[in-house]
């Protein structure tokens, strides 16, 4: 297609990826730490032990530092759908706008109203009012995650909508199908629980640092118990929902699944490559085929993971690109022809309507509807269909590193919990160092999860229906390049500031003496 400005598309994607990844450096900690603080304050109110109040206030300070930059990096994401993906905003705005509006009304006000009480209300409202406020902040931030992840999940598996050729857009026909979309629900649960794990690691890591420095023993150990219990429970949840994610992916986004597993030729009893290294020179090979340099396989596991059946057939990249009649899979070529028919039929329908030719309009509409499922492929008519294959090494490695780290996190929580309960944690310096250095790993794992989810679904903004090349705003590529670098410089500067303020605040430690907190 000579009419597509690929530089514009790439820079727009880069800008969205940049801003989303920066935002995701801060959100998981907000999601999890808000609950951890709420647990701690509940313990304070229940036991009346002022040490818990001191602990709560300390973590609250760190929460505030992180929260501010999460808000700063978040506002741009909402508006970028309009500024950089304007066609998308019209094409699915009828469905996608609603969760964003509900997020504002239901979640953001809850969060921002009660965060003020949480920080400024200690001496002004009753203990109970304050505790309720802290819980409402946690609920508010997690509710906002619900709505935005419903929106994201819907993009991966669009449901509850119908294309209206008169308005040239998709329109919502069932709100509940949008909300209770299986991909959305699973994505929400997997994402928030990963946030809880990250926050638990953060609390444990910071506490470990205090123990290594021989400071704040009470605060560190009490915090470690709360965080390791929370972390252990939520890790189990991450595993469960991760498993659900894989099954959804196999069902609704088979190409993402095949790319993530580097499964080139589909097969029954497909093995899972637990550990594998891809050959580097595979760019030259046909159809992005990537050979393994070495791999360790678990027999039948992939089939089981995808369809809960060790004998199930899992389609590979080749089957999806070239089609596999035996398994009823259309090739990209066939799909792009169907898509082109749909696009042409839409044009015919609109012209016929304008000319008042109702019978032609009716025929065109029928043709359009019969081919709409492949609408987005139409934009690739006459192009190399391999552009529809996502980046395989990126998704393959990201997934494996994320899962490997997840296993490490679970084990760490268990060890920390046992050692803290036995009161032996102070002396295990190796474990404490491990806990400290696990903090960056948690952030890496969280980002890698999004890389699998988002790079793995390229080029689809809306699965099978709208590719990035038809979703972007009509701008000059240089404009987007300039804003990309503006965001890059600003967000990097703010990140450095955040890390410095955070580490300094940790070094300073709880500012309140035990005596003071008793007085209050």
């Amino acid at each position, binding site marked *: 297609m*000579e009419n597509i400005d690929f530089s514009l598309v790439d820079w727009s994607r880069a800008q969205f990826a940049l801003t989303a990844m920066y935002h995701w450096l801060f959100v998981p900690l907000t999601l999890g730490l808000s609950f951890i603080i709420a647990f701690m304050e509940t313990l304070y109110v229940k036991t009346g032990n002022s040490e818990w109040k001191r602990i709560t206030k300390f973590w609250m300070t760190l929460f505030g530092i992180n929260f501010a930059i999460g808000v700063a990096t978040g506002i741009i994401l909402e508006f970028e759908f309009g500024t950089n993906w304007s066609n998308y905003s019209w094409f699915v705005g009828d469905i996608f*706008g609603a969760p964003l509006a509900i997020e504002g009304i239901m979640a953001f006000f809850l969060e921002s*109203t009660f965060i003020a009480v949480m920080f400024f209300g200690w001496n002004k409202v009753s203990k109970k009012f304050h505790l309720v406020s802290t819980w409402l902040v946690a609920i508010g931030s997690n509710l906002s995650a619900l709505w935005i992840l419903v929106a994201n999940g819907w993009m991966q598996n669009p449901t509850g909508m119908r294309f209206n050729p008169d308005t040239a857009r998709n329109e919502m026909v069932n709100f509940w199908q949008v909300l209770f979309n299986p991909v959305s629900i699973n994505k929400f649960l997997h994402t928030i629980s990963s946030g809880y794990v990250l926050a638990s690691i953060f609390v444990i890591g910071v506490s470990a640092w205090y123990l290594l420095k021989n400071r704040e023993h009470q605060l560190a150990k009490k915090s470690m118990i709360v965080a390791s219990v929370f972390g252990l429970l939520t890790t189990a949840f991450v595993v469960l929902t991760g498993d659900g994610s894989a099954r959804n992916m196999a069902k609704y986004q088979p190409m993402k699944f095949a790319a993530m597993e580097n499964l080139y030729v589909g097969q029954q009893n497909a093995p899972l490559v637990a550990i594998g290294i891809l050959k580097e020179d595979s760019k030259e090979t046909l159809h992005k085929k990537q050979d393994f340099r070495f791999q360790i396989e678990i027999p039948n596991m992939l089939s089981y993971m995808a369809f809960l059946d060790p004998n199930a057939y899992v389609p590979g990249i080749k089957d999806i690109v070239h089609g596999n009649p035996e398994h009823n899979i259309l090739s990209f070529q066939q799909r792009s022809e169907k898509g082109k028919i749909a696009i042409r039929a839409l044009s015919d329908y609109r012209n016929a309507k304008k000319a008042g030719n109702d019978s032609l309009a009716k025929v065109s509409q029928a043709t359009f509807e019969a081919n709409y499922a492949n609408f987005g492929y139409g934009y690739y008519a006459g192009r190399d269909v391999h552009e529809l294959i996502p980046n395989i090494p990126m998704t393959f490695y990201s997934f494996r590193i994320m899962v490997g780290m997840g296993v490490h996190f679970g084990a760490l929580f268990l060890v920390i919990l046992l050692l803290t309960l036995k009161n032996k944690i102070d002396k295990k310096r190796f474990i404490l160092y491990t806990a400290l250095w696990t903090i960056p790993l948690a952030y890496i794992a969280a980002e890698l999860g999004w890389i699998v989810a988002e790079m793995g679904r390229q080029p689809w903004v809306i699965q099978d229906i709208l590719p990035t090349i038809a979703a972007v705003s009509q701008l000059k590529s240089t404009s987007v390049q300039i804003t990309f670098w503006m965001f890059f410089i600003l967000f990097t500067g703010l990140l450095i500031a955040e890390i410095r303020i955070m580490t300094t605040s940790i070094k300073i430690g709880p500012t309140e003496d035990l005596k003071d907190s008793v007085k209050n």
Partner: protein
Amino acid sequence: MFEAFSYISLQQYWWMIVSLLGAILVFLMFVQGGQTLIYTIGKTNEERTLLINLLGRKWEFTFTTLVTFGGAFFASFPLFYSTSFGGAYWVWILILFAFIVQAVSYEYRSKVNNFLGKRTYETFLLLNGIIAPLLIGTAVATFFTGSQFSVNMNNITLLTGDKMPVISEWKGLAHGLEAALNPHNLLLGLTVLFLARVLALLYFMNRIKHAAMMERVKKQLLFNAIPFVVFFLSFVIWTLLSSGFAVNPSTGVVSIESFKYLHNLLQMPVVAILLVLGVALVLLGIIRPLLFFEKCSTKGIWLAGLGTILTVFSLFLLAGFNHTAYYPSTFDLQSSLTIANSSSSQYTLTAMSYVSLLVPFVLAYIWIAWRAIDNKKIDMEELNNESHTY
């Protein structure tokens, strides 16, 4: 309940909600106005800290209202979102930048080892304080003056040729910044900027117990109220005397009509009453503390705040109701956006209308929470006893 509404009444209902959110946003921009006055009112470090802490407890409401305003506009009028945000790119990006730097500044300004230094964060607050009201005002003025763009739904079927398959195309020279070259638009930008400063001064009167600062606040109120009134009246008179963008309700054809907004005002007496009442309340809120400071200083913000909400609300209704194109295109009149041709489907508007029933609850808990932590005026002593300060 909302199922019984006709499509057009749902569209009008949502235009009113968006207008109300826009109006509340303008009122809450007193935070931005205050950020431009920190060095004018606060002469010592302590005084400035006091001001920043006062504003710092409210900035998130403004921010959240902006985000909700954007989300509600997206959900109810997605064609505006796609046309204006994607087209007037630079205006919106600059506004967003101004809010990004604001969001960290309160929390990081006084923190140890904050990388950029206290003055940088204060500059961020100043930038946000000037850019946000000025550009939002300028952008909203284009509701009356128009922009250059075209909308063509058929574009999404373009597979060949030299055009991208994009529905909305901006024709303005500077992707939105050209709006600031039109003095009519700029007048509204300046109006909002000075209004924000006036409201901030009234807010300070309501919250601060500090004699020396109060003297400065009083003086500044007069200095800012005069340009505000001049800019506001110029904008309103200019708009009422201008031609507007009328829509033929049966064909949807857009045409230029002389004195369109004046006609709207006369044909919608309720809106006219709201506008006059709003303006009167704003003026009353300003004049009373100027004349009778001792008695009337604390209530000014409420009078002027309510007045602002009514005024902005009625201006939005003037732009969108009575068969008017609220986002007109001077490049191609028929591409102009109206509440009927740019809205979400009837189903979505109905579903969203149920969500809108939550708004009174939201307002109620905001009220309860504000009352709980703002129950008395703040002075230096109270600030020193706080466990969390900016």
